[in-house]
């Protein structure tokens, strides 16, 4: 760009010249760089405004957790109560129940719903025909795009009190079976619903990982006499490990968020004892119940624990030699 540089380089082509440029040329001043990119800032402006207003400003709203908040007096007019709301939470048996339910459901989901797409992806990979693979994928992806309201409605029509299964059971003499309203099996039910809705969708990323494994590995393993099970165990699964560990980290981070809409929709049918989780507790206590401070405090604790969880899972994954997310 500078005269000293371009004159001797006059004979050279642009492509040769480009790589040496940054070293030879003084960087233009910050002001000039900003002015030169003024259009870029115009592109960024609406997005920045959105993220500041709808993602960062509400973070400040968490101060409500330390207040005896009333919507009429607002954040600036409400009394500060220190850690009182947190004390209330620790003493409240309902919080304990919500926490227990959350942890049980999170555990079931990590043990059953997390591996389900891995197994399905391995199965699809074992099929030779692309056409069969693609047809199955088309079918299993579908429920991911259906809202939870529709999913719960459909499940009610099949498994609910007046649903298909209960009517068939009635015909063989078993009366009053309503799987959708049974608190004892509710946690298994919600895990099954999660698997039904998202098992197919989950395979996409695992399948991409499988496809990226070079086929020569399989070929030489097969030549050395490795059976298809051993190839799966020693080639496919290790090849998927970075993706599996990454998704496991993300799942652990969101473990305390167990299907909020799913729980909210089904709580009236099975009762709060079985279906109260942390998020629904926050909703019922705060927005529905008007106990804003306590609800916000519960949400804040949840958010902090989730952040700690995802950061430590990330660290563990790195220690074990895998790739972290962050």
């Amino acid at each position, binding site marked *: 760009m500078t005269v000293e540089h371009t004159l001797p380089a006059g004979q050279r082509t642009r492509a040769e010249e480009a790589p040496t440029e940054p070293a030879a040329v003084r960087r233009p001043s910050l002001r000039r*760089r*900003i002015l030169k*990119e003024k*259009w870029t*800032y115009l*592109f*960024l402006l*609406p*997005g*920045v405004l*959105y*993220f500041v*207003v*709808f993602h960062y400003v*509400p973070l400040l*709203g*968490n101060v*409500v957790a330390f207040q005896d908040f009333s*919507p009429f007096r607002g954040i600036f007019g409400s009394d500060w109560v220190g850690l009182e709301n947190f004390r209330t939470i620790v003493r409240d048996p309902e919080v304990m129940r919500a926490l227990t339910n959350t942890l049980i459901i999170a555990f079931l989901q990590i043990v059953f719903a997390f591996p389900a797409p891995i197994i*399905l992806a391995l*199965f699809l990979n*074992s*099929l*030779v*025909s692309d*056409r069969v693979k693609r047809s*199955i*994928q088309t079918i299993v*992806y579908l429920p991911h*795009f259906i*809202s*939870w*309201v*529709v999913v*719960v*409605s*459909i499940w*009610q*029509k*099949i498994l609910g009190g007046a649903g*298909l299964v209960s009517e068939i059971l009635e015909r063989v003499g078993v009366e009053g079976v309503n799987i959708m309203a049974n608190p004892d099996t509710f946690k298994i039910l919600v895990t099954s619903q999660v698997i*039904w809705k998202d098992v197919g969708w989950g395979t*996409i990323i695992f399948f*991409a990982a499988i496809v990226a494994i070079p086929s020569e590995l*399989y*070929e030489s393993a097969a*030549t050395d006499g490795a059976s298809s099970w051993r190839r799966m165990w020693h080639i496919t699964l290790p090849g998927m490990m970075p993706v599996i560990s990454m998704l496991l980290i993300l799942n652990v981070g969101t473990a305390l968020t167990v299907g*909020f809409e799913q729980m*909210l929709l089904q709580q*009236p049918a099975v009762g709060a004892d079985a279906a109260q989780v942390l998020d629904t507790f*926050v909703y019922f206590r*705060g*927005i529905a119940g008007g106990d*804003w401070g306590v*609800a*916000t405090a519960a*949400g*804040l604790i949840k*958010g902090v624990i989730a*952040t700690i969880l995802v950061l430590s899972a990330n660290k563990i994954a790195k220690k074990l030699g895998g790739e972290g997310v962050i």
Partner: protein
Amino acid sequence: MTSTDVREVDGTTAGAPAARTRRRRDAARPVWQEPPSTALKAVKVVFIAVVCVVMLYPFVYVIGMSFAAPESVTSGQLFPTRFSTGAYQAILGGGIISRALLNSLFITVVGTFLSTLFTALLAYGLTRTRFAPGARGVLLMVLLTMLFGAGLIPNYLLVKNLGLLDSYWALILPVLISPFNMVVMRAFFMGLPGELLEAARIDGASELRIFATIVLPLSKAVIAVIALFYAVGYWNVFFNALIYINDTDKWPIQVVLNQFVVQNSDIANVTNPDMPPPPAVSVQNAVIVLATVPILCVYPFLQKYFTKGVLTGSIKG
């Protein structure tokens, strides 16, 4: 060996040349891969059948029952034998459901347009992180929001303080840009041929002009898939509508579906009072179908794009 549609199990032996020439167009088994045993094939066929039935039958049943004639709904059969469109006529004459569908349509169209537009603007701006001072900070700011959220109550208080309660904007503005969609779009923009954009810049085209006349036309695939994802999200909006919209006339279809089907409120309210009431079961199933049909309509397009690897490609990158 019985012949089935399933290629995997059609009994060909991979090693035999005759068998290999019989496979056309479809993928062939690699030479080194041994064919599965008969038992394993049987297990696979059963597994495929079970997966397909479990995934598809609920939809088939609900659609079937929504068209069931009154005398055909109470017998607990796997599929009704006599059909009628009475439930749909009664619902669409009733007003509540058609208004909810129109509300959802409005939210979906406006929301999808705005979300796609602002996601594209931000994503294009963030392709300039190497040149514009501070842009990297903006990228970090966006990515960080994928790790934590402010929480339910602070978000609610914000929407309330902005005066958006009972407004459709409450369903659009708080979810305007999805960081994930932005990352997908940015990855696609980064992959566009840089020489082309550079040439336009040297010719004196403004960034806005480059964006509108070069970037957008070259990115139709990713814009289509992101728009479809936003559209599905807006059509399916439930919880935000439940807490932000109190005016029942403004309810989108998912909230109405929850009210009348999941929570089993008086379903007779949604049908036309001047018509003979169809069985409640048919009406409920028909409402489920109406809330799902738009998704089923766009699904083939979604499917087409994500098999092209638009999404997985950028996730890996």
